[in-house]
């Protein structure tokens, strides 16, 4: 059992998949990005299949599935965002699906896209931009700016720090959970190659992946709700 070798392979592997030879590899494309391309392609094809030939009456099962998906996703994110954040629910639903699907590709033998810090960082940055943009749109720039010194002027530095802390915590939580789950799964597979990894896979690959997606979306929705109040 070469645990050190395994960890080295998992954590220090070269993530670059497509290498461009100019600007010192600045435009290199990581494996995770390619995996998300696959995720997007699969999701797009599934959706096109599900929503093709939609009818008003006598709907087929696939249309029912499509409508249920829309209802379910909007129910989840709409409930978290509340009345005021209604218009962000579609985007939050997409983030939920994106993270969930990225985590679940581990089931098919790919490295989860969210195991790449760049992906979670991108998601966290998008979230914080969305949160602040929502605050500016709903309250206006002046009020948004004033919001930093509320409820007291003394908390202003902390509120400004929050701008960086929130995305960092979002990004690290997701990244840490996914990499932790993957490392544990790999170690388990090393220790007991049959039966036991399958049982734990249900938790680490499916449940944890979806829970992390939910937590990410839940926290972002919470921030948006707070920002537009």
């Amino acid at each position: 059992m070469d645990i050190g070798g395994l960890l080295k392979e998992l954590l220090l592997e070269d993530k670059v998949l497509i290498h461009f030879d100019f600007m010192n590899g600045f435009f290199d494309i990581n494996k995770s990005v390619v995996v998300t391309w696959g995720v997007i392609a699969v999701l797009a094809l599934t959706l096109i299949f599900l929503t093709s030939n939609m009818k008003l009456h006598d709907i087929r099962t696939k249309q029912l599935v499509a409508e249920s998906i829309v209802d379910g996703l909007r129910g989840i994110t709409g409930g978290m965002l509340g009345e005021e954040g209604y218009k962000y629910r579609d985007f939050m639903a997409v983030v939920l699906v994106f993270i969930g699907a990225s985590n679940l590709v581990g089931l098919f033998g790919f490295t989860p896209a969210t195991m790449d810090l760049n992906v979670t960082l991108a998601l966290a940055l998008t979230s914080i931009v969305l949160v602040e943009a929502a605050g500016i749109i709903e309250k206006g720039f002046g009020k948004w700016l004033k919001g930093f010194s509320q409820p007291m002027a003394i908390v202003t530095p902390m509120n400004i720090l929050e701008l960086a802390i929130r995305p960092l915590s979002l990004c690290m939580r997701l990244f840490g959970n996914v990499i932790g789950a993957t490392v544990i799964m790999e170690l388990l597979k090393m220790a007991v190659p049959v039966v036991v990894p399958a049982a734990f896979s249900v938790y680490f690959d499916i449940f944890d992946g979806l829970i992390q997606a939910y937590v990410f979306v839940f926290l972002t929705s919470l921030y948006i709700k707070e920002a537009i109040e």
Partner: protein
Amino acid sequence: MLSISIMNIVYTVINLLILYVVFRLFLFKRVDAVLQKRREEIEQATAEAVKKEKEAENFKESYAKKLQDVGKECDEMVAKSKKDGYDEYDRIINDAKEKAEQIIIEAKHNAQIEAQREKDAYVSELTDLVVHAANKIAVSKHDEETDKELYNKFIFEAIEKSE
């Protein structure tokens, strides 16, 4: 392992936006369109039902009014018939009265004529009797006694006859 590549962050953001566009185009928009259409259809059906209900209400009202009118007309007709009947009754009664009066008058008249005729007949008989008596007297012998007898006889006969 913790190497951060700005371009990959950008790629991921772009990926996320692409996925959002995909979801919008192929899921939310399509399903929303269907739901919207369905809602419109329901609204239309509801409006139609309300309209129909109103129409039915109008019909009901008009029928009730018509029914009322017919009832009124019926009453009028009955009243008219009654009035006509009374008029007819009066007319018949009057006619009958008139006729009766005429009959009475005629009867009276006839009776008068009859009485006159009887009177005439009596008078002529009396005349005959007188003539007869006179003849008898003229034919028989005359003395005071027979005259008296005759006289009495005549009177008796006359009395008997008249009785």
